[in-house]
């Protein structure tokens, strides 16, 4: 799969960066931008697969409405990447289909 980004975030002199990972691959991005913007600039094409058809999906609205940009962030699935700012060390994974809840016995008795 091509990893040549469609989007480029111009570097500002003196601006700080953070390092995130997508599927284990390190990406260095400007601090303060959204996860969706960071992944697009980092060359990520497929953010998730459709729950209905398994078709590949990527961000569409970039403003919290379309739910196309869902990813797993630090172990929490189904997050809207356009609404979450990047933080250093953030581990992001592709969202494959729908999230699963753990309903096995004792999984959440402490809640």
């Amino acid at each position: 799969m091509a990893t040549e980004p469609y989007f480029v975030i111009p570097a500002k002199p003196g601006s700080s960066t953070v390092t995130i990972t997508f599927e284990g691959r390190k990406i260095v991005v400007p601090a303060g931008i959204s996860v969706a913007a960071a992944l697009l600039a980092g060359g990520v094409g497929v953010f998730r697969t459709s729950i209905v058809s398994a078709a590949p999906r990527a961000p569409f609205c970039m403003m919290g409405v379309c739910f196309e940009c869902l990813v797993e962030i630090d172990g929490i699935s189904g997050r809207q990447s356009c609404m979450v700012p990047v933080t250093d060390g953030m581990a992001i994974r592709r969202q494959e289909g729908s999230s699963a809840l753990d309903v096995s016995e004792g999984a959440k008795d402490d809640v």
Partner: protein
Amino acid sequence: MQRTDMYTHREKRLTIVGGGLLGAAIGYGAAKAGAEVTILDQGDNALRASRGNFGLVWVHGKGTTMPPYVDWTLQGLRLWPEFQEELLNRTGVDSGLENPGGFWLGFSEAEVEKRATALEGINKNGTKVPFEILDRSDLRNYLPGIGDAVVGGSFCPLDGHANPLMLLRALHMGLNQLGARVVNGVTVTDIQHDAPDGRFVAVADDGTRWSGDRIVLAAGLGNASLASHLDIHAPVLPTRGQVLITERLQPFLHYPTNKCRQTKEGSVQLGSTAEDTGVDDGTTSDKIEWLVRRGVETFPALADAKLVRAWGALRPLTPDGYPIYQESERFPGGYVVSSHSGVTLAASHAELLGPWVSGLTQTPPEFTSFRGERFLDTDSSFSNGY
């Protein structure tokens, strides 16, 4: 129901005021029976109970104070599977009926005991609603992941759920294919009788006139003011229900419950509140929080689910919660129908009420229980079950 004489041509034009689940189902059944159906539906600002329906297809626990309603509901459940097939074949739209049985869940021993007594009481009236009372460990065999807050519950193998929005869509597509006319943006404010331009004329707020030989008022909350034009008493009042829906999740909840259900598509619907807030169909953060808390107590794993939407809708409830199905004695051919169980009773409304309002079947004897005058009895007090 007994068939009466066939139509004469001049009696075929049927006007239905209201294009929600009730009006659309009745219109569908009437059109199938040969009536020339015109449905007058309001605009986008209408208080559409059908679009807030929780989607249960449900009998157990209903009808504690009215045995004929238990039989009527059981009949509705019997007719549903075939009706679902027919709608699917005719329109290609899947109303999503699934009937694996349904669970009522209780949070205290006292609540579960009260439930058991009520269910036994229903069957003492001669009806046969199968049910079972289960404790938490029994429940976990069917509902893995249930929380410790759930003490016990009841199960009825007849219950199930469907998709209210897809059902409404299927009915409207069916109406279209049967040649029925659905007119949107019509707010009916008056009903005239034996006018020069028709036996029943529905008059809209913009002065347009819709004439027919028969008329059905299926206008939800609107029936409260319209029914008097047919000399029928229909004191319908709004009760707000707020519901929540989660993101689509992998299937984990294989039975509908009274507190939440997982749709075929995977989202979990949490419901519902019962609030006396007049005609306000909005949402409030305190009720959303209450629903979330209750949902997470029921299934602790739901704490990890993301909510995507909350909405409110107004149930058009009669004072005792049971329907009104009544033909006017003063104006024969004029009918009032009020029910807030538009999903559970969809098949009956189509297959039984459709021909009835078309004048093709006689009024079933049990419908004497569903007349609006029962609310005029000053010696009675009513509770709508919410």
